[in-house]
């Protein structure tokens, strides 16, 4: 890999942590045969839920935080519980204590304590063509596809290293070539609601680590957030194109590519395939965390059809604090609005066995990460069913 004088300086003269961070970038660069490091404008690190990273992750982060400082604006993924409500959730005190230490370690490194999988809803909106180093798969898919920014799906420590150095190996989705579609996906049905999650799940299963070029439908930013999160769960996809909608779609070369079709039947089959529960003990909304508009909409729906089983709504601290009315309505009906955490990285398995959700990413990960059975349906249908 070609190093600039500044890279070389950091490697030779930097602090221990800077040299180690540079070492990680060089290791990754050698693995993927990157030509050089490219400067980044923001980083987003994963590996913040104690449930996911455990004692080995906590130990590493606390050691690193003694001297590590990020050099670009950096946000971080959700924690394993809401630290303001953990007692009410029945979370064991040792879990909460260690979770708090992870949060403090990131803050000590200068990371903004967003604890969110949706940095793009919190003012971190990289522009078209900007290079960034993000580690959350759903946010990576959103940034590449919807914003036209450029990032690979970084591992947690690699994204942290990039945040410290301010650069990342240039390969894959950072390059024009790596952003070319590999397969055309024709959608032959008009999607609404959870259909975007279903399209993502079906496409991810079929294209694997390919890069899909969708055609045949449109969607809002929020719709594409759900599509991308599901696509990045069932497939190893860091990006998609949507004809006439996403910025990189114009000029993408699709001539001669293999083409596959997704029909209404495919969506129905996928919905059934991810529903293995019979009776839910919890309705879980989030994964990714809800936007302000989504939170307000859920509050209206809950007010109209209050559920008889608990409902947990996951959003960021910023959105929760800015929407006290919506939070008040949901809590009045016995629900909870949880911040700083998200559906499948939070502790559920200590209390629940079956979760009802409209999230494709949630339906994909709840069985393995939270040992839950799943009822997978639109939020209106779920509220109706558990009214």
């Amino acid at each position, binding site marked *: 890999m070609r190093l600039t004088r500044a890279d070389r300086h950091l490697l030779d003269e930097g602090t221990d942590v800077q040299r*180690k961070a540079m*070492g*990680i970038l060089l*290791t*990754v660069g*050698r*693995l993927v045969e990157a030509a050089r490091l490219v400067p980044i404008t923001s980083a987003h690190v*994963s*590996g913040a839920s104690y449930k*996911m*990273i*455990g*004692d*080995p*992750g906590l*130990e*590493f982060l606390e*050691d690193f935080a003694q001297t590590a400082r990020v050099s670009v604006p950096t946000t971080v993924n959700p924690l394993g519980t809401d630290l303001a409500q953990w007692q009410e959730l029945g979370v064991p005190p040792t879990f909460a204590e260690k979770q708090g230490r992870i949060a403090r370690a990131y803050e000590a490194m200068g990371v903004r304590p967003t604890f969110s999988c949706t940095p793009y809803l919190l003012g971190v909106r990289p522009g078209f063509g900007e290079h960034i180093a993000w580690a959350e798969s759903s946010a990576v898919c959103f940034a590449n596809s919807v914003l036209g920014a450029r990032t690979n799906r970084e*591992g*947690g*420590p*690699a994204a942290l290293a990039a945040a410290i150095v301010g650069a990342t190996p240039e390969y894959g989705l950072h390059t024009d070539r790596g952003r070319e579609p590999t397969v055309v996906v024709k959608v032959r049905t008009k999607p609404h609601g959870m259909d975007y999650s279903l399209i993502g799940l079906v496409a991810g299963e079929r294209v694997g680590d390919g890069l899909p070029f969708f055609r045949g439908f449109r969607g809002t930013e929020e719709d594409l957030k759900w599509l991308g999160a599901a696509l990045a769960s069932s497939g190893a996809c860091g990006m998609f194109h949507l004809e006439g909608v996403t910025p990189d779609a114009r000029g993408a070369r699709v001539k001669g590519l293999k083409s596959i079709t997704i029909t209404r039947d495919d969506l129905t089959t996928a919905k059934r395939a991810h529903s293995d529960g019979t009776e839910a003990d919890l309705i879980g909304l989030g994964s990714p965390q809800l936007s302000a508009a989504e939170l307000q909409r859920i509050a209206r729906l809950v007010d109209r059809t209050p559920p008889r089983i608990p409902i947990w709504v996951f959003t960021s601290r910023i959105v929760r604090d800015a929407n006290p009315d919506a939070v008040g309505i949901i809590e009045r009906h016995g629900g909870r609005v949880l911040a700083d955490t998200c559906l499948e990285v939070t502790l559920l398995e200590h209390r629940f066995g079956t979760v009802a959700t409209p999230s494709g990413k949630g339906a994909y990960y709840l069985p393995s990460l939270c040992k839950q059975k799943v009822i997978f349906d639109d939020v209106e249908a779920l509220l109706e069913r558990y009214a």
Partner: protein
Amino acid sequence: MRLRARGIVPGRASGTAIASSAVFSFVGGVDPANGSILDEATGIAGERLEGRIFAFPTGKGSTVGSYVLYGLGKRGYGPAAIVNRRADAVVAVGATLAGIPMVDRVDVGGLLTGDRMVVDADRGSVELPDVKAKRVVTAILRNQGRILIVRRSEKVGTFRGRWSAISGHIEGRENPRHRAIAEVREETGLRGIVLRSGGDPVFARDGATMYVVHPFLFDVPSRRVRLDWENVEHRWIRPEELHRFDTVPRLTDVVAAVLGPPA
């Protein structure tokens, strides 16, 4: 003998090998408290990583593996070096955090637990001071989806009575491709053979000898084979039937090197 490798994490280390042919995860695969192997599928469960050269094909599993490797290194229970067939980011980043030298692009199937090894990630090499290399060619002959295997006679020097493909020793600086063509002609009498491809060398181990097998694939126009003294019997089989025969070491991998993994 010395093997070429690709340096992934800089540094140099020597030690005794602990080798597994199973894909490995540092999450659940090893006790983070003391570095003893837990995963039974490795065939080396109970062995300790400390100070050893850990050879396995590639890593799998979540990013937490990086942190586990970091913790092992910090407490002095980590391996002295890591050798992979194909490095993955989780293990490579963990090795970087722990300061453990690491190389890849080594066919770890030829390494045995107990081998003395020197791993040099800066120069890109792995040295096995107690092992001698012998270079051989193996020719996979294909006719309408079937491949030729032959049973070695009692008169040959090694692997008597075992099933093999057409093979022979490479002499001095001889071009392996030329040797392969010559062996096919001598041992089968076939004419009109067409060389289709060659594969990366496969390391087949027999005690202190490492056979560096250069695989080649030929299409042949006929199944009428005339064996010479080296082989006593022949069969045309489908590649997936290979496991039913008592073969020379790693013949399945040699076949896969030119035909791809079995379906």
